[in-house]
């Protein structure tokens, strides 16, 4: 094989600490290399053209590019060599940027290491074979996990684009966190007025199947052909017949059930519909508080239900859905702020979270939109907002910025003044992060027009003083201590990955960061993709996001799905395992260890042999390292290819 080597400067990114010309010169001496050069930006148009020309001029059979990580530009260069008529697998990359030039400044060592990496790449390349993808048909249905605003947007966009959508929501209603909000920043328009119609659209869209109060049990398959097992949790109410009239909730004598929708400000009934605009508007029994389910006595709801749909015997149910793509929009949860002992650790009823406050502000909330202190129901006069509770704080393991608390705190300060004109709001902040359209103007309004007292500093202690809470903190701009007699303290709690995010990630086979947020395919260029083909991300499951960004991502994920489904067939990755039937002795160890069931036993002239189902094989290569005689080889990562790299590096 005649090989061409292109060593990229990447501007000064590589050239500054690697002598690329020397690397190219060394490469010229390698067996098989007939052409080697260094180029300024190999990925640029002239850079790519140079490769195409060299392939033609030198009749190259394979190309090595030494530049950035293959995760960045492998696809780019594969297309380049394809353009010149080479099979795209006759290409190798040597990562001399992320793995060399960026991690040390020793030019001699870096240059030497780059030469090694190029040698490895050429040795492997010489053992590469042209590979050809297989086509397979796909199921053009999409699963959206999570019915918050991002999931709703993704579902509606996909459905409007003509796809069948399965939307799975963990709670009994879609709407997510946004449904709990009173108003939205920076427009201060009513949250349920803008979200409500979209929720209704979901319910009425002919292309959308909604499973509320359901969870993902199992995911099998691969892009184009996933098989999803959905657990429909027992509601004890036959939803087919439930009209959502609410009589059961009215009459239920068990009044102390946890009201999670209202963030547990007050209680709800053991049988309940979370809020009037719920979609679907169906009742559900909370078995923890239902006397009938606990003690076998009561049965009031069954008696009063006009459509007779109460079923105390109901069990969880499982349904299987086949889809071709998955959008994950599982959102976020709130940081458990009670680890902050200095804020009372949960002992003071008048220290509440921002989302609890939001429910209080909401006209459909438990206080009917009146701001009342939980302790005595009085209207507060001084309201203190504390920002960055569980954000930007290493000591509680949350060093990241949640990003939207500054904005909702400004909004809540404004709303406080609207509700209680005689009130005074104080905001303890670290920095104000208001980097959206009209955002900074909005926080300035909170300060200037609504007379909110912004104090730059952290709060060191909250303690009760009479019926008030004394909030003591630092004012770092003044260099003094400040103490505020507060009637109500609202904590701007940060966002964290939703509980169960990591469990779902394992089912989806996508990765997540150390906080549990899902990893996107590329931090800049693949914001809604994951490294698992056919799985996309929308909204805060990837990292904290405000509403506009979540909606944008919902649409972006939908457009990715629509793009994927624009073809009737997908090409399977040819980097799959292949059995050398002559060498296979039919021992079945590969079949035993394949995680995907992609290898089956076949009969070949009366002998048992292994056979790979190419569209199912995911290319992990467990089989290859299991087969003692090496009869099954993962294409593009064969034993010989890896051995050639080892041998290139370790030459005795």
């Amino acid at each position: 094989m005649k090989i061409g080597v292109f060593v990229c400067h990447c501007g000064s990114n590589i050239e500054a600490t690697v002598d690329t010309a020397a690397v190219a010169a060394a490469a010229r001496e390698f067996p098989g290399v007939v052409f080697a050069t260094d180029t300024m930006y190999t990925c640029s148009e002239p850079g790519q053209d140079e490769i195409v020309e060299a392939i033609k001029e030198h009749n190259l059979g394979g190309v090595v590019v030494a530049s950035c990580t293959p995760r960045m530009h492998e696809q780019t260069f594969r297309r380049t060599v394809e353009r010149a008529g080479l099979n795209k697998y006759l290409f190798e990359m040597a990562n001399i940027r992320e793995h060399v030039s960026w991690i040390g400044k020793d030019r001699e060592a870096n240059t030497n290491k780059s030469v090694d990496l190029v040698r490895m790449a050429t040795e492997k390349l010489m053992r590469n074979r042209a590979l050809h993808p297989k086509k397979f048909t796909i199921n053009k249905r999409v699963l959206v996990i999570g019915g918050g605003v991002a999931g709703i947007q993704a579902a509606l966009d996909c459905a409007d684009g003509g796809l069948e959508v399965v939307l799975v929501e963990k709670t009994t209603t879609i709407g997510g966190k946004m449904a709990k909000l009173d108003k939205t920043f920076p427009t201060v328009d009513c949250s349920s007025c803008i979200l409500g119609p979209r929720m209704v659209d979901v319910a009425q869209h002919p292309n959308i199947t909604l499973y509320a109060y359901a969870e993902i049990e199992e995911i099998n398959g691969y892009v184009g052909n996933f098989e999803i097992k959905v657990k429909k949790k027992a509601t004890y109410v036959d939803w087919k017949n439930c009209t959502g009239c609410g009589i059961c909730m009215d009459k239920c004598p068990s009044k102390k059930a946890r009201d999670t929708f209202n963030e547990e400000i007050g209680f709800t009934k053991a049988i309940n519909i979370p809020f009037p605009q719920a979609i679907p508007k169906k009742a559900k029994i909370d078995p923890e508080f239902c006397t009938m389910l606990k003690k076998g006595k009561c049965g009031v709801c069954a008696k009063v239900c006009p459509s007779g749909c109460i079923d105390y015997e109901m069990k969880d149910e499982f349904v299987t859905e086949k889809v071709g793509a998955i959008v994950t929009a599982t959102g976020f949860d709130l940081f458990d702020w009670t680890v902050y002992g200095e804020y009372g650790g949960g002992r003071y009823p008048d220290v509440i979270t921002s989302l609890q406050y939001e429910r209080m502000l909401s006209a459909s909330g438990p206080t009917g939109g009146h701001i009342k202190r939980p302790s005595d129901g009085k209207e507060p006069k001084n309201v203190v907002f504390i920002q960055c509770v569980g954000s930007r704080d290493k000591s509680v393991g949350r060093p990241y910025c949640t990003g939207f608390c500054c904005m909702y705190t400004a909004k809540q300060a404004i709303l406080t003044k609207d509700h209680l004109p005689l009130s005074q709001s104080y905001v303890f902040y670290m920095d104000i992060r208001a980097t959206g359209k009209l955002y900074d103007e909005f926080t300035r309004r909170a300060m200037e027009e609504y007379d909110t007292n912004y104090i730059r500093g952290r709060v060191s202690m909250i303690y009760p003083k009479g019926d008030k809470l004394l909030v003591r903190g630092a004012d770092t701009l003044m260099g003094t201590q400040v103490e505020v007699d507060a009637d109500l303290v609202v904590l701007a709690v940060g966002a964290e990955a939703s509980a169960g995010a990591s469990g779902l990630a394992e089912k989806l086979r996508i990765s997540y960061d150390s906080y549990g947020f899902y990893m996107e395919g590329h931090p800049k260029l693949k914001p809604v993709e994951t490294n698992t083909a056919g799985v996309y991300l929308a909204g805060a499951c990837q990292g904290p996001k405000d509403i506009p960004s979540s909606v944008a991502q919902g649409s972006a994920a939908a457009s990715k799905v629509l793009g994927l489904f624009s073809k009737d067939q997908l090409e399977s990755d040819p980097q799959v395992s292949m059995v050398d039937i002559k060498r296979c002795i039919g021992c079945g160890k590969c079949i035993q260890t394949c995680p995907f069931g992609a290898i089956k036993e076949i009969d070949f002239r009366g002998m048992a042999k292994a056979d790979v189902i190419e569209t199912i094989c995911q290319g992990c290569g467990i089989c290859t390292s299991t087969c003692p005689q090496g009869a099954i080889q993962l294409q593009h990562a064969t034993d010989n290819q890896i051995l050639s790299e080892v041998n290139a590096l370790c030459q005795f």
Partner: protein
Amino acid sequence: MKFQKELKDSIRKALPELDVVIGWCGSFDPLHATPHFIRREEDIEKLEIGPLSVHNLATYLPGLRGKKVGIVVKGCDSRSVIELLQEKLIARDDITIFGFPCTGVVDQAKIKKALGYVGNVESCDMSDKSVVIVAAGKAHSLELSDVLADKCHSCRYPDAIISDIFVGDKSGEAVPAPADYEALATFENLSLPDRFGFWLKELDRCIRCYACRSACPLCVCRDHCAAESREPHWLSQENNVRDKLMFQVIHAYHLAGRCTECGECQRACPVDIPVLMLKQKMNKEIRDIFKYEAGVDPEETPPLLSFKMEEENITEKDW
């Protein structure tokens, strides 16, 4: 031996249903036995079992796949049969296992070492405790226990673990003690450079005949062994000690969790390289980490072909 007749009777009874029964018979001189393939009634009388029945006949089973095979097994051999069954390399229905209480087999190397060259062996009497060999008209006497194979001294399974027909009295229900790896422990007292040098020195003798592989009942790849393949190309065919040692590591690793330490590899080695020790090392680690012993339970899965989400006995490095 007293159960020899009983065994012959059982084979006679079973033979009509079988294609072949494998046992041992006399060989070129009275000091050696050889595998014996009984196909006809008249072959049965030649069957001889005793301290010379050294060969692990399970080695032949994968090659006879599809045939109805009877096999006479020592306790250690039966473990190889179990392992082959476990890996579904042979079918249980196809084989009939004849077990007997083994009292140990000799190590020819030890006899050779004790006696040196003695000329043509004329007779050999192996009573309970002693061995009397008459060669070139001269009698040589040895203690049997001095010439028993190492594995017999620490034998934990004298009776076949699995058998269809068992002749003679079982040696007892003794629960096998955990294997002790004394020789291995002694070797591991050597310094690392000494161990490295040891293997180079030993393997230097290797003539790459692959007798170790051919004798191994679990080397089922046969003609497709990675040692001589170009696809994949793990080893060169050159005469160098690196590849010779690498082959032994490949052999040991491919047997990890499968090897029953029957010792055939080492017995077959014409230049007496102690290759079994590498397999014992694998087995010891497998036992310590996975609490697993190969060739005991046909229903088990070899540990390297399975996993647990939480591994109790693996402590990963803390960085």
